[in-house]
């Protein structure tokens, strides 16, 4: 049984508030045969500048330190790719460093940038990420991804990362999903939702109007997971610029407060040991007393069915931001839907629903912009960008794209950015006739979860309108 010390459970504290000033993203595709990575990174940084009515040169003049998220050197076949991009963005001689934490790379990159501003080292920092996953065929790509597993104990077993992850999905499916057709359909509903939301996002790689039946008929990848349950493999870039209060308000009119924390767990799921469930603010001491009775086989925590790293990232971040109940305190979320089933697991890890009840977040309609059962706004819309299933998973950029998309809602800019026909055209696309503005009306707070593979790293980012701070509101009461 693993135990944590009081010191390890200390709630992280920033030495000064940190704000998100602006953010940007490139288009995302499976391949860009005629674009270099730097062209995509310039697209993302240029969008960030335009969002706050600056030229790229003006925006750059504020940046003091740079963090670059790029997970897989071997995909791009370029060591120190960070240095190449830093030079091409014209940011020399500023200090810069690369960040690599698998699927959580984007979130971790922001985590580093926030800490450097919070410490006072820099007043403004860049977090920019990208991934180049089109320089090898899919089979080789699967091998390269599998190198993120333990090279002696896991990679030789099929060279297929999906397999190492899918055993965990299987356990969740059997214990908590009880192998029910209804649960399988709920998983499919997530894919339908996220591909559907991607139809309104010009940056997205995989807009699709599909049905639950389409998902259930798609080829099996690793039962019960099918092709349409899985995230995309993408190329693209995204960035966030953070600053201290004084600099942030000088740079833009509406900076957003950033609360961010990270958690980790074993690279090999095989090494997971049992522990007590660390409780979130909306959970009680006896909450899980009868979990085993309700779900036989759920004795081990986190076992193979929960992500401790996600739980710990939320454990810290909620308390940093004053979040008690994510469903009522937040207005939207962008979750790491690597697979439909891992999306459900994450609902529980971050307390949107208690352990064992994740499926209800979808089945209740709470995860939609408009609840399909009531026709009213969903309580906590999820992955309006399309997520990793519908929008992209360009690993090093993913966590930053999520934060960018959440911020656009808090800035009330969803329509301006996603609805501009010129932007669709610039990507060689036509704005759909049935395009919808997915703006979450009056959004004040949003969350993004950036997650690595089998749960080795997770970050939880909470963005907050500084005029509607939860902690201040609670103190006023």
């Amino acid at each position: 049984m693993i135990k944590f010390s009081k010191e390890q459970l200390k709630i992280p504290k920033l030495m000064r508030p940190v704000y998100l000033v602006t953010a940007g993203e490139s288009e995302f595709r499976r391949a860009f045969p005629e674009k270099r990575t730097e062209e995509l990174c310039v697209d993302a940084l240029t969008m960030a500048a335009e969002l706050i009515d600056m030229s790229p040169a003006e925006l750059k003049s504020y940046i003091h330190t740079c963090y670059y998220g790029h997970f897989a050197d071997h995909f791009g076949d370029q060591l120190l790719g960070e240095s190449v991009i830093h030079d091409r963005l014209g940011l020399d001689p500023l200090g810069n460093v690369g960040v690599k934490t698998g699927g959580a790379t984007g979130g971790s990159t922001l985590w580093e940038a926030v800490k450097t501003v919070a410490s006072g080292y820099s007043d403004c920092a860049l977090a920019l990420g990208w991934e180049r996953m089109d320089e090898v065929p899919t089979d080789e790509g699967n091998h390269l991804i599998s190198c993120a597993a333990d090279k002696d104990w896991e990679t030789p077993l099929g060279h297929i990362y999906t397999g190492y992850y899918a055993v965990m999905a299987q356990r969740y499916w059997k214990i908590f999903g009880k192998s029910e057709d209804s649960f399988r359909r709920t998983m499919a509903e997530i894919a339908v939702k996220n591909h559907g939301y991607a139809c309104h996002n010009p940056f997205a790689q995989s807009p699709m109007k599909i049905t639950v039946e389409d998902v259930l008929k798609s080829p099996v990848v690793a039962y019960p997971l099918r092709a349409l349950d899985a995230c995309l493999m993408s190329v693209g870039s995204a960035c966030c610029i953070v600053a201290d209060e004084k600099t942030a308000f000088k740079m833009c009119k509406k900076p957003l407060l950033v609360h961010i924390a990270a958690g980790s767990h074993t690279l090999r799921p095989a090494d997971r040991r049992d522990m007590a469930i660390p409780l979130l603010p909306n959970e009680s001491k006896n909450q899980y007393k009868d979990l085993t009775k309700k779900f036989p086989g759920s004795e081990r925590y986190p076992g193979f069915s929960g992500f401790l790293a996600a739980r710990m990232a939320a454990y810290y971040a909620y308390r940093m931001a004053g979040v008690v109940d994510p469903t009522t305190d937040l207005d939207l979320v962008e979750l790491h839907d690597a697979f439909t089933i891992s999306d459900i697991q994450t609902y529980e890890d971050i307390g949107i629903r208690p352990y064992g009840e994740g499926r209800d977040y979808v089945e209740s309609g709470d995860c939609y912009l408009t609840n399909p059962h009531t026709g009213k706004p969903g309580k906590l819309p999820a992955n309006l960008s399309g997520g990793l299933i519908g929008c992209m998973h360009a690993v090093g950029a993913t966590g930053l794209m999520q934060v960018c998309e959440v911020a656009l809602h808090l800035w009330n800019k969803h329509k301006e950015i996603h609805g501009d026909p010129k932007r669709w055209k610039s990507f060689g696309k036509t704005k759909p006739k049935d395009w919808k503005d997915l703006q979450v009306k009056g959004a004040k707070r949003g969350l993004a979860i950036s997650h690595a593979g089998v749960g080795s790293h997770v970050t939880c980012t909470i963005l907050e309108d500084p005029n509607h701070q939860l902690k201040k509101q609670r103190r006023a009461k």
Partner: protein
Amino acid sequence: MAKEASVKIVRERYKVNGEFSVITPNRPIFNEAKKLCGITNPRTMTYIHSYGGEAPFFEGISKGILRGTRCDNPKCESKGSIYLPFRIFCPDCLKKMKIVDLTKTAQKTAKIHTFMVCERSGAFNTLDKPIKFINIEFDGVCTILMSYLSAGEPEIGMRVAPIFRTKNPTYTITDLSWVPVGTPKSKLPKGFSF
């Protein structure tokens, strides 16, 4: 045909033999308008990798022995915990652990914790498809080993027995596999034994 890459250790240094890097020409990539867009970068390489303190595990499975490790540090709060995957150091006290033979424990108590039948694989895969990934729990072991099933269909809770590629071992984790308890010797894959 190029001589296959191999390595010996002589006076604590690697001595390499054969071809480690194969040179193949680059090829241009043109778009549909016949304009140059890129280039292929072929590369065939062989890495040299040390198993270090985990070598006894990989040597063990090539000889039909399943080894794990146990923390015997009396001052450690996890004293007595047994680990498989084999870990060199205790994750809590960081003392070097004692190597223990878990072959009998596995034969008597191994059962499937979870599994996945995977239709796909990545490049360089050497296992037959579909790959039946299994994760195995053992009595008295605090971790859950990942491996693969070589006979039958996996189910959660199924009792399984270890089998070892003792004939022409690869000295990789693929030398260890599992079959449902009761599987006859005649059903084992080529080169494997109980």
